[in-house]
């Protein structure tokens, strides 16, 4: 089994930072939801808030790294322009090295780019803004989150939205990689 540099970076983007964020969401949302005085002791709140602070900060860093690696390292390989000697209207073996043009060469796969990549590449950039807000909120409120239901629910709502949007990006990333992998 051999991975090229491009495949490795694509893995780091999608299965590394991206998957880590999506998986850690479950723990984060459970931590926020259960942070209530009737469910946890005073010592438990201190312990959980500390974990939430670290967790939300690491998650925010993860999602920023995901979008940066995706946009500035992986994406240029996806949208690279083939030389004029390669016919961009036929899905040939040579065109496989140019994923965007490979997808656009057939009506069966064109929507992976027109819809999938066009949505993914843009909407993904909203997720780090939201993840940052969640981390800021956890730090700002701290133990108050156990008593301030309104703030807790707002953080949970923004966290869920961030997860949903990053889920969209992850889903289409997986589908596009399956249809036209970066080799």
């Amino acid at each position: 089994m051999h991975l090229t540099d491009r495949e490795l970076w694509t893995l780091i983007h999608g299965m590394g930072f991206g998957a880590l964020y999506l998986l850690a969401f479950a723990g984060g949302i459970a931590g926020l939801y259960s942070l209530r005085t009737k469910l946890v002791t005073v010592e438990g709140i201190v312990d959980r808030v500390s974990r939430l602070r670290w967790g939300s900060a690491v998650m925010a860093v993860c999602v920023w790294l995901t979008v940066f690696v995706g946009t500035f390292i992986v994406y240029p390989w996806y949208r690279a322009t083939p030389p004029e000697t390669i016919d961009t209207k036929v899905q040939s073996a040579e065109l496989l090295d140019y994923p965007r043009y490979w997808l656009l060469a057939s009506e069966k796969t064109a929507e992976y780019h027109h819809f999938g990549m066009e949505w993914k590449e843009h909407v993904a950039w909203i997720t780090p803004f939201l993840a940052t807000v969640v981390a800021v909120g956890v730090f700002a409120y701290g133990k108050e989150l156990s008593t301030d239901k309104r703030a807790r629910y707002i953080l949970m709502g923004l966290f869920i939205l961030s997860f949903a949007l990053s889920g969209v990006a992850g889903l289409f990333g997986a589908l596009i990689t399956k249809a036209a992998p970066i080799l």
Partner: protein
Amino acid sequence: MATQSIPAEQAAEQAAGYVSAADRVMNAAMIASGIGSAVLGLMVLGAEVNGGLKAFLTWDKGVGPLAGKAGVAVIAFLISWVAMHFAFQKQSPRLMTALWITVGLLAVGVALTFPPIYMGIAALIAPH
């Protein structure tokens, strides 16, 4: 009996419109995230409609206009966050007001990054 209670002082403060220190910090970050998202959406639509803007946003040839779209959005997010963080220390909207502002801005950003919407609007504004 209340299943979830907050201290009486906190309840009174919320009722009187008092904005806590934590709320002020949260408000600034929240609204900034909405601004960043809305600016991103506007850049996506703008690049689709205007070739000049699309060229301006091409900060890197390999990445294309996405570099500028994301870059402008991040800059807008950071500048508005810093500005509002300090401004809200003096006077801040209430948490729910800030939330609704954020929701509105996020709706703009999410909508304008959805291809059928921004491509549809672009086709209406500047048909090819």
